[in-house]
């Protein structure tokens, strides 16, 4: 054999280089969602068929304090996805407002358009699906927790151990849209109840809200509903001075807040 050492090394180098670069280069176009873990092609920044958004009317939310209950959106979520305490896919907290007031603020995953978590994922395990929802493929996730570091809304959690509380979970067929049974050592987050919405049902948190404070809508067809009424989405956003949480970060969140202080529930705006 007359392979010179130089050629051998060259060959080895090329093999090594291609091993690192090729998979990466394949993913270059479609910066945002080309690396979708599901097989169907996602046309990157192209127009979505649907664009789910949530609108949270802060005037109506009282954290279910008036009902003497835990926030019901949280409970509904927990019942479906068996999340643990401290792992609230939607959390409701009392926050300080101006002039010494306080109000309740539900904080779900914002399903950001420019999602920091999707950008930093090293293996494309987290991605946007066709309606803009950010999902995690727990079969691919390597558990590096880079996405948890990136998320400015603290809305990603980790399956630290094997979960045994709900033995019936083993009967679920895993899909990123319905991530049960939980996969140890991977990340979980709100899936915007993809399985429900595909069948014409509202997400659990919205259906579970006894105040009708949360609306589920589609920016493309411009309608939204809280399960009690149907409204024109963009009109509602425009008329109520809707804002998005931490908009200055450039994450383009898909959750809108309508400002207010829960006055509809007969609470004092000042505490």
């Amino acid at each position, binding site marked *: 054999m007359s392979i010179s050492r130089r050629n051998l090394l060259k060959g080895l180098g090329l093999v090594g280089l291609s*091993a*690192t*670069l090729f*998979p*990466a*280069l394949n*993913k*270059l176009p479609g*910066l945002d969602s080309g*690396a979708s873990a599901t097989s169907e092609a996602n046309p990157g920044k192209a127009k979505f068929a649907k664009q789910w958004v949530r609108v949270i009317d802060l005037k109506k939310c009282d954290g279910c304090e008036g009902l003497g209950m835990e926030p019901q959106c949280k409970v509904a979520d927990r019942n479906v996805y068996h999340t643990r*305490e*401290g*792992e*609230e896919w939607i*959390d409701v*907290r009392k*926050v300080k407002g101006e002039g010494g007031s306080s109000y309740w*603020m539900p*904080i779900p995953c914002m399903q950001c358009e420019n999602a*920091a978590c999707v*950008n*930093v*994922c*090293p*293996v*494309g*395990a987290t991605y946007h699906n066709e309606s803009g929802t950010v999902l995690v493929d727990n079969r*691919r*996730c*390597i*558990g*590096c*927790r*880079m996405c*948890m*570091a*990136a*998320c*400015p*809304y*603290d*809305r990603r*959690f*980790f*399956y*630290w*151990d*094997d979960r045994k509380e709900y033995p019936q979970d083993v009967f679920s067929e895993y899909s990123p849209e319905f991530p049960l049974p939980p996969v*140890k*050592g*991977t*990340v979980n987050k709100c899936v915007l109840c993809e399985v429900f919405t595909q069948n014409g049902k509202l997400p659990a948190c919205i259906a579970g809200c006894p105040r009708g404070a949360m609306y589920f809508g589609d920016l493309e067809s411009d309608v939204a509903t809280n399960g009690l009424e149907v409204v024109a989405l963009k009109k509602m956003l425009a008329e109520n001075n809707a804002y998005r*949480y931490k908009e200055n*970060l450039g*994450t383009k969140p898909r959750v809108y807040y309508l400002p207010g202080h829960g006055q509809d529930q007969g609470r004092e705006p000042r505490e």
Partner: protein
Amino acid sequence: MNSADRIAELEIKVLKPLVKPGFGYNLVLVILALIVAIGVFFWFGQLRQGLVVTGLQNQVFWGLYITTFVYFIGISLAGTLVSAVLRLTGQHWQTPITRIAEIITGAALIGAAMMILVDMGRPERLLNVFIYGRIQSPLIWDVIALNTYLFGSLLYLYIPMIPDLAMCRDRLGESISPIRHKIYSILALGWQNTQEQKESLEKAINVMSVVIIPAGIAVHSVTAWLFGMTLRYGWDNSILAPYFVTSAFFSGIAMVIVAMSIYRKAFGLEKYITQEVFVKLGWLLLTMAIVYSYFNFSELLTEAYKLKGSEQAFLSQLFNGKFSGYFWLFFLANILIPIFLISWSKTRNITGITIAGVLIIVGVWFKRYIFVIPTLSFPMTPTYYNAAAYSPNLAEWAITLIGLAGFALLIGLFFRVVPAIPVWEVVHDWEKSTTPVTDHSIRFGAAKGGK
């Protein structure tokens, strides 16, 4: 003493530990190996049960592992600086310690890779990084940079080692087992000390010294960007990459000082690793301490002046809150005291500089800790249920020690089989110091060359 005697003495000195390292040295290695074994035991537990065995939680989800990873990445710049940068600038005083510096780099990078592995929730899916890797992710930049730098520095460690391996092959003869002899001869690649071989070796070393510098800078910058690309307080900062590079030089030099101090004593190399080497490295350390403090000051001032968002609450954690102890102690013990020890002529000696080095290698770990943990402890939204303070538990410490003790163990084992001082390079320098230095050789840093 004529030069032949001098060379013979050096060879005896450096080859002795390869045959008879002494009881104490072996004992230390055994203890280190035990610590690693305990860590591996705990790691198996973690693999079985998940990261739940650590003190990590959804709020502070990176802890000791990532702290130590960043620490090792910093340490790993040592080899590049001492060996490559100084070689290219035509310096010679560092020749006796180049090998120590290079093995620190190699061992630190292996330690860093190890810490990443133990931190992963699904280590068995490591290959996904290559199968599904996305070049948009800073983590993939880190994978590429770290592998390049690791491969490059192992090569850069190996190439200048060839003549010494040949020396082991030729001199150790019957005092070592035939298998070990065989390994030396394979690794020596048929080195016969011919003029032609010397020339190609020097060429290879010079090429590698140039190549390794950008690789080293890259790995530190990219590790900084791992944090800098997030939106979190304390990390979301454009100064992070150069800041990491200087702090890497800073801790790397300190590690070299400590290691050479240990090997000087352990192997009786006082004659070769002289006070001059310590003092010169001390000056470098002083420079880096100043540059590092400057970056630190600049970073904190820009943040503290504007107090954007919740920056005030975040910074007060450091200045007078729960991390302030570490924070101020770091400035005292790792910046001010070392600067003082090196500047004052009474303490500017081997002991003083070694103390500075020890202070820094311990302190920088804590500095990494208060780089990672306070940022994560600070919630980005008012929502975390469990804002309980993170505190690392026993399992986490034990697993972290795989890295820390493993790092020392790797170096210790390495110098059981390879001379701690690059004999041929030192001899070469002795020979050259009798010939006049030309302008040309300085400019091109024809370091070990000398045409």
